[in-house]
Structure formats: C-alpha cells, structure tokens
C-alpha cells in the first residue's frame, strides 16, 4: 500500500513537471510566433510607409484637416444642403439600382450554378468540377477589371458596373448557396423523383422551400456589400454617386458643400441598408 502511494506520488510529480515543461514550450513557441508576427507587421508598415507619397508621421497632423475643412464649409453653407441632397439623390438611386439589379441577377445565376455544383442535386454530376471552377473564377475576378473592360466595349453608364458586380456576385453567392444546399434534406427530392418530376420541378418544389430563407439572408448581406462596391466603381469610372463624388472633390476648396452632401447621402444609405438588412436577416435565420 505504502509502495503504491509513493509510486503514485512520484508519477504525479513526473506528470506535473512534464506538464509544466510542455506549457513552457508551448508558451515559448507562441511567444516566438508572436514576435515574428509583430516584426512582419511592423516591417510591412515601414515598407508601405516608404512607398507612400507622404509619410505616416508627416500626414498624421493633417489627418483632420480635410474633414474639418469639409465640415466647416458644409456648416457655413448649411442652407444649400437640402438643395444638394435633392440634386444628388438621382445619382444615389442609380448606385442603389446598380447594386439591387446586380444582386438580383447574381443571385439567380448563383442559384442555378450552386444547384448544378452540389453533389446529390446536380443535373450533370460529371460537370460539378466545371461549374465549381466557373464560380471560383467569377469570385476571384475583381469587379473593377470587368467594369473597365466593359466600359471600353459598351461605353460609360451603369450597365458595365451592373454586369461586373453581377458576375462577382454569382461567384460569391454561389459558394455560399452550395454550402446551404449541402445541408438540404434529400428526401423530398427523392420523393419527387419517384413520381417522375423533372429536374427543374425537383429543385423548385423539393429544394427551394428548404433553402430559401438562407438564400435570402445571404443575398441581403450581399446587397449591402454591393452598394459599397457600386459606389466605388462609380468613383473609378462607372456612373452613380461615386462619379459625382469624384467630380465634387476635384472642385476643391470652396465647393466642398457638394462633397459633404454626397458623403452624408452615402453614409446614411449604407447605415440604413445595413440596419434593414440585418433586421430581416435575423428574422430569416431565426424564423418568422
């Protein structure tokens, strides 16, 4: 008995020292990793700082110059604000329309492609990798590339931006949708198959009711992202509020009231769409 107790005690101290050694080793590893990571980050910032036109430290005091100037001028010209808001409202509508249509068309494309690339649901199981790669490529293409190439072909206006964002949306939503599809119950599909339903009928009646809430939730999130993307694309060359913002900023001091109005429109729109969409997403995911 005594022997056994001593053996236990000895083992316990062994275990304890082993455990402490392991903890120390782990801590050392994570410490080294952390130092490496911080060094990487610091040298990265140093590098970008050197490549930038103005340095970080020189720029820091100027950080609030532009916003202050903008706000100051906007306050002085406060009576002009409603007029400016009205003036730029059509451009805002165009930006939102670009986002809405591209989300709509992109989601439709994503539904088809994701169904075609989900095991168990695919129309042509052999072609699953092809549709997957198609979605990967569409997702990886930055919108700006497609938009600029299309502007060369189609001329300016909202259509190139719309197509560009829609293509990217197909890829991005397609990936999420196919993850949703994988969790869908196959029993309704099999049931419909046994009564001779076509592929379209099986998808429409067997899969859609299961996945629709998740689809909608993802599409709403995508709409939020697409509003931002369409504003940025406008700034780079497509139409909408981004293009107006670019013009307004190039006017420079003395005309900042227009830029301030556009900033406010953009900010409010993004906040409002954010709130609405997160409200409905919560409702959709947690059930009505």
């Amino acid at each position, binding site marked *: 008995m005594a022997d056994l107790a001593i053996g236990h005690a000895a083992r316990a101290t062994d275990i304890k020292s082993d455990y402490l050694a392991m903890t120390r080793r782990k801590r050392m590893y994570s410490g080294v990793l952390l130092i490496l990571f911080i060094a990487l980050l610091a040298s990265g910032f140093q590098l970008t700082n050197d490549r930038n036109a103005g340095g970080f430290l020189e720029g820091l005091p100027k950080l609030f110059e532009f*916003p202050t100037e903008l706000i100051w001028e906007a306050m002085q010209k406060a009576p002009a604000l409603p007029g400016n808001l009205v003036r730029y409202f059509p451009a805002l509508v165009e930006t939102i*329309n670009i986002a809405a249509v591209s989300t709509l068309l992109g989601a439709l494309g994503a539904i088809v492609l994701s169904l075609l690339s989900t095991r168990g649901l695919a129309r042509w199981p052999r072609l699953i990798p092809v549709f997957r790669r198609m979605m990967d490529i569409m997702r*990886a293409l930055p919108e700006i590339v497609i938009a*600029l190439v299309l502007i*060369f072909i189609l001329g300016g206006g909202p259509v190139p931006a719309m197509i560009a964002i829609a293509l990217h949306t197909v890829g991005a939503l397609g990936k999420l949708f196919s993850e949703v599809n994988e969790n869908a119950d196959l029993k309704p599909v099999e049931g419909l198959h046994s009564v001779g339903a076509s592929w379209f009928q099986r998808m429409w009646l067997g899969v859609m009711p299961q996945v629709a809430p998740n689809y909608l939730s993802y599409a709403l999130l995508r709409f939020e992202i697409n509003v*931002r993307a369409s504003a940025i694309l406008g700034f780079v060359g497509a139409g909408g509020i981004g293009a107006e913002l670019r013009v307004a900023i190039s006017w420079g001091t003395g005309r900042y009231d227009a830029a301030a109005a556009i900033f406010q429109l953009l*900010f409010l729109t993004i906040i409002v769409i954010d709130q609405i969409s997160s409200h409905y997403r919560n409702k959709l995911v947690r059930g009505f």
Partner: protein
Amino acid sequence: MAVIDAGFDLSTAKAQAVRMLERKRLIAFGVPAIVLVYLVYIFFSFDVPGLAERARLDNVRILLSDTYSHKTHVERDSRTDKVTVAIERENKGTYAADAWPDWVKRDGASTMIDLPGDSHVRFDPDAVRFDIPGYGLLKIVQSPLGITIDAPTETLPSWINASESRVTVTRPEGRLTVTKTRAEVLRYFFGWELFWFTLDSPFYGKSATELLGLAVSGEEVRPGQSNIAAMASDFWNNAMWRHKDVAWAIFETILMAFLGTMGAAIAAFPLAFLAAKNFTPGLLARFGVRRLFDFLRGVDGLIWTIILSRAFGPGPLTGSLAMLLTDTGTFGKLFSEALENADPKQVEGLRSTGANAVQRSRFGVIPQIAPVILSQVLYYLESNTRSATIIGAIVGGGIGLLLTQAIQTQKDWEEVTYYIILTLVMVMSMDILSGWLRTRLIGKSAGHQPHP
C-alpha cells in the same frame, strides 16, 4: 366527441387555411411580378436600348485579337525614306536596322515584305505595291498632292478603304495603310510578343532547348556573368513586360491586404470586449464603442480612402489604412457578438478557483472565441486581397494601378490579359491558402465561412 367539438370550429379553421393558401398564392405570383416590373424599370432607366448604339463591337475584335496575338509594324517615312520594323510600334520593340526579321528584306532601294498566304508588299521608290493572290497587283502611288490607286478591278472591293489622303487595305494576312507621308504594313503573329526576352537580349528568339543548352554550357554569352544569371536578369528586367514591377505590384497588393486585415483585427480585439454585454456592464462605454464600430463601417472604404489620401498622399499605406479602419468596424461587431455568445460556465469555473478578470478572459473566453476570430480574419484576408486590387486603383498602388493604367491606354490588351490572369491566380491562391490555414488551425468543421 364533445371534447373535440369544444374549442375547435371547423369552419374557422377552414377559413384560416384558405386565407393562408390565398396569401401564399399571392406571394408566389406577386414577388415575381414585382421583380419583373422592377427589371422593366431598370431596362429603361439604364438605357439598355441605347446601349446597342453606344456599344462598339469593333472594340471587341481589337480586344480579343490583341489578347492572344501581337502585330509587327513595318513603316516607311516618305520624307526620309527610312524603314523601321517595330513590334507593336514601340521603341522597346524596334529591330536594329541590320537585324530585321526574315520576312522583311531589302532589295536595292525597295523593301519587300512577305505576308502569309503568298501575299507580298513592296515599298518601291515610285509606289507601294501589294500583290494579293486571287486578286492581283494593287499599286498605290503617294504624292504630296494626293494618293492614286491602281487596282486590277474597276470597282474596289469592300476591304479597301480609299480616300484622297488615305488608303487602308484590311486583309486577314495583314493590313496596309498608306497616307501622303508614310506607308505601313501590319503583320499579325500568334502569342505575346517579347514575353521572355526583348530584342536587345542575346537570348531573344532562341528555342527552349537552345536556352537549356546555353544554360548548361560554360561559354559565357555575356562575359563575367553566368548564362543562367544573364537570362534571369534579362527576363526580370524585360522593358516590355516589366516583370520586376509586376511582381512587386502583386506583393504590394498582398501586403496591403495583410496589413489592413491584421491591423484591424489587432485594433478591434480589445475594443470588442468593451462592446460586449457580458464584459462591459457600463451602458455608456458599450454604446460609445458600438457606435464607433457602426461609424467606421458606415463611412465605408471609399470615403476613408479619400480622406486618408488627403493626409498621407497616394500610395499603399493609404490603402492599407483605409482597409484597416473599415474592417476595424466589421471585426469589432463580429468579435463582440462572438464574445456575447461565449459560454459563461467556463468563466464561472475559473472564478471559483479565484482567477482574476484578466485570467478569466485569457483561459475562459479566448479559447472559446479564438476559432471564430481566426476563421473570420482568414476569410477577410482573402476577400481583402481582392479589395486591395480595387483600392489600389484609387490610391495608386499594387496590381490595381497597373491594371487600370493598362486598360485606360486602350491598346495593350495583352498586358491587361496578363495582369488579369495574375490577379486571378493571386486571389485564388489566397483563397486556397486561407482555406488551408483555416482547416489546419481550427479543424474541418470550421472550414466554412462564418454565417452572416
């Protein structure tokens, strides 16, 4: 029986069911109808009918043929009688006068240009002659007064476009343009021109086996430098394709995404504790931090980019700081939600052992939320690589800048194609890398993207 009757009225139940079915039917027809009406409105609001007029389909042809082929220009200036042969008519692609390609020959005072399909163009002192098999000899005489054309047929075919000051002959084998002061032949070649070596490199025009032979042979093409090093340096410093600048631009884009994402994660992490209900009982602090997150997200990358480039000037730092600010808002919201969903039992357990607040967070909470945070950070790293391309176009850094510049010059479509392929490879490999890291660090179950 009486039990069922009590509290259950068949007719109201039926009415309810009918109403529900009617509502469902209304939705089933109403939603597609609304979508359709909206699309019709968009069709006219975006002026899709007018698009057909504005669309320049010839640009499509230029774009497509440029992406896989290149053209070599042979040009004679009538005033100096000098003939130059240049790839894509660029300085960097001009052949030396004594090293023309074999399809351009000097013949006394004339220049003879062979085109595919046995066509020939001669720049003779008195005229430009284009010999087209199956059509005949086309003679074009340039004079300061105007251009006269002497064709074998009475009426000119549609592929010849002639006016007083300019004649253009567009054939599949090449294009001839003659104006009063110059004559120019374009010949198309498959592939990207000078992709590996430019004309001034001793390795230009050598086949892969020849290059391999040179690489292993001891004879130095450029004295004082091994052949492999010379090849690498000629390729790396290729003036036409600027491989060095492109590689740097790709690196810069990834760096911008990395700094933006990681910086945002580091900034958001401590703030998220302040925004989580179970860690900050004080309503005021919580409210303030949450509104800060909303503000950072709501202002949006575009506006941050504009404001920051006013202060820091254009460049990659501005781009990464803009991403950092926007993503601090996003991460703050996501992290604080993860914190609020953390299981309180583990914290209680630690509290029972007498652990203080920092220890409770370190050992009770962080192990729970680390997988969520890591998976979100990795997901954003991938998505920010793409954003960095777009932001780079605005702030003038990385591959985004090269891409927009190449597109806006509207002629180097082969370069645009090259950059697009590189961007695709870059984003897709970041996608694969982040997915791999996610499964590696967190396990299979967390390989998915976080649910919104």
